[in-house]
């Protein structure tokens, strides 16, 4: 890709990430419950994956050669639903049904109800193990598809994450690329107060992973890290993405209380103005 087209791609992805944030906020305001902060903090990574990096086909969600995305931090369901809708897996109007009776858009992703969701998640710490299993199966089948797994930082307090960390390194799953959305906050407060996580990069390095530490809101850095991961052989890659919870809406940013609280109509109006959308 030429420098000019790469720059164009980055500009497009930035716009797309903005559009993703707008839809997330609208659907959460409509639903009246759900996880705002962690959906916004991971929006740039999910956008880079779904609109640039991943090979996938919204018209054929079960396409065998697709790359897989596992949302281990299942509470960021609004983010997953938005990137799926904007990719064309289903009509955007369905986003309004989030968390409503009969909706395929459950509070946490349900693969049985919504094509495009690889596996149901929501209980933390379990996605990386599943990603590893998929990666093993793909390798056995001679497929070169990649498996992406998005984790929350607080989520890595779960012991199973480290079991899976060992498995991925032991079986040299270089088709696994995990991303930690390191927004530094969890429900009860800053991660460093609840249960300290640092040094994050050193931990994953010690577990045998290739680790890339980036600004998780810098689209160029995200794409660069995803490209770098693809070239790593013999070990899995962990991208530690330093992010801001609630990113994109000034009055949500870095506020722990917006982990599981949705915008009021007033807040939605202000947020959409900040994101350049006129409160449609």
């Amino acid at each position, binding site marked *: 890709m030429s420098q000019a087209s790469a720059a164009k791609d980055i500009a497009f992805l930035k716009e797309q990430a903005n559009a993703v944030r707008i839809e997330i906020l609208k659907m959460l305001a409509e639903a009246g419950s759900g996880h705002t902060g962690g959906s916004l903090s991971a929006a740039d990574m999910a956008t880079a994956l779904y609109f640039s990096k991943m090979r996938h086909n919204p018209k054929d969600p079960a396409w065998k050669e697709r790359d897989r995305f596992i949302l281990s931090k299942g509470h960021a369901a609004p983010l997953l639903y938005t990137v799926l809708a904007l990719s064309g897996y289903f009509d955007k109007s369905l986003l309004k049904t989030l968390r409503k009776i009969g909706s395929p858009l459950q509070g946490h992703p349900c693969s049985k109800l919504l094509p495009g969701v690889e596996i149901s998640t929501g*209980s933390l*710490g379990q996605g990386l193990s599943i990603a590893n299993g998929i990666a*093993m199966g793909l390798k056995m089948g001679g497929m070169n598809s990649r498996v992406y797994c998005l984790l929350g930082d607080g989520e890595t307090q779960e012991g199973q994450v480290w079991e899976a960390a060992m498995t991925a390194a032991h079986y040299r799953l270089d088709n696994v690329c995990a991303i930690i959305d390191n927004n530094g906050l969890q429900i009860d407060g800053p991660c460093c107060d609840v249960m300290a996580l640092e040094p994050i990069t050193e931990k994953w390095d010690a577990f045998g992973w290739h680790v890339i530490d980036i600004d998780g809101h810098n689209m160029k850095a995200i794409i660069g890290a995803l490209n770098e991961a693809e070239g790593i052989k013999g070990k899995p890659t962990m991208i530690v993405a330093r992010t801001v919870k609630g990113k994109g809406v000034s009055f949500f940013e870095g506020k722990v209380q917006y982990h599981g609280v949705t915008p009021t109509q007033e807040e939605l109006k202000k947020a959409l103005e900040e994101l350049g959308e006129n409160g449609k």
Partner: protein
Amino acid sequence: MGSREKKSGVRSQESGVKTPNSGLSTQNLNPTTTPLTKGGKGGFVATRDAYGDALLELGKKRKEVVVLDADLSGSTKTAKFAKVFPERFFNIGISEQDLIGTASGLSLTGKLPFASTFAVFETGRAWEQIRQTISYSSLNVKLVATHSGITVAEDGASHQAIEDITLMRVLPNMTVIVPADGIETKQVIEAIADFYGPVYVRLGRSKVPVVMPDAYKFTIGKAYKFHVGKDANIIAAGIMVSVSLDAMEMLKKEGIDAGVINMPTVKPLDNDTVVEAARASGLIVTAEEHSVIGGLGGAVCEFLAENYPVPVKRIGIKDTFGCSGPSDELMKLYGLTAEDIVRTVKEGLKK
């Protein structure tokens, strides 16, 4: 089952009913091989050994079969498969939660994973992983656990799963199977490979008498009627089938016509056969090497209470933990012998 069992004396039993012989075998006092009941005309096989053989055979026939274990492959007997198909075997180490997640991921790529470890760790340590992924998404993962029940013996309560049937039975989409012997175990492994969906299979550590006829064909959800009695019917699963057959013979000598029904599939329960047994005798006794809460006894009681109420007596572990000791002594200590069943049937008939 391989030729080894045949050599050791497995043979056809025309009536399908085991005949009690002179008594406990004393040929081997090693706790792992001490037979649990009398009988033994058809030989003794641990269901985990039958699993190891069946899994290897299945692996030869079906390339999509993959096997995962959590550092217990020598004990669960998945090592037999691992030796022949190392590229399709994944030792996940001592990490049961990761075992379940990894197996789930493999199933999502079209593999047919068998995930094995001890029952207490598979269903206890990783229960939530099984719930959230395998059960909720109805994945085609086979959970085959060994070392269930108190016949784990000397290792004691920490290793004796007495609540695993309950834990698995409560999960939507889950099929729960408790084979009675080696013959049935082999059949079960073949049957669940042809069935799409999550299945839990409960196997044991100790050698148990072979009770099923050679020509037996296991079907998921179908009971096997050794005999339907007019006075009482014992619905049993796992090693308690053999014990119940001993009890049946003892009762017969006292003029009591008690039947024995092997109920390998605890979920979905063979409701028709439960009703048939209840209708024939009016007294049902359930027998399992498991807590009396929520297992086979629970399942039978739930069904009968709503559909065909008759008196039911439950033989099992009575809401307590196990302890260390030889298998046969533990069976006595926890009231799981033929004599206990005989006494329970008689008590039930008095009322």
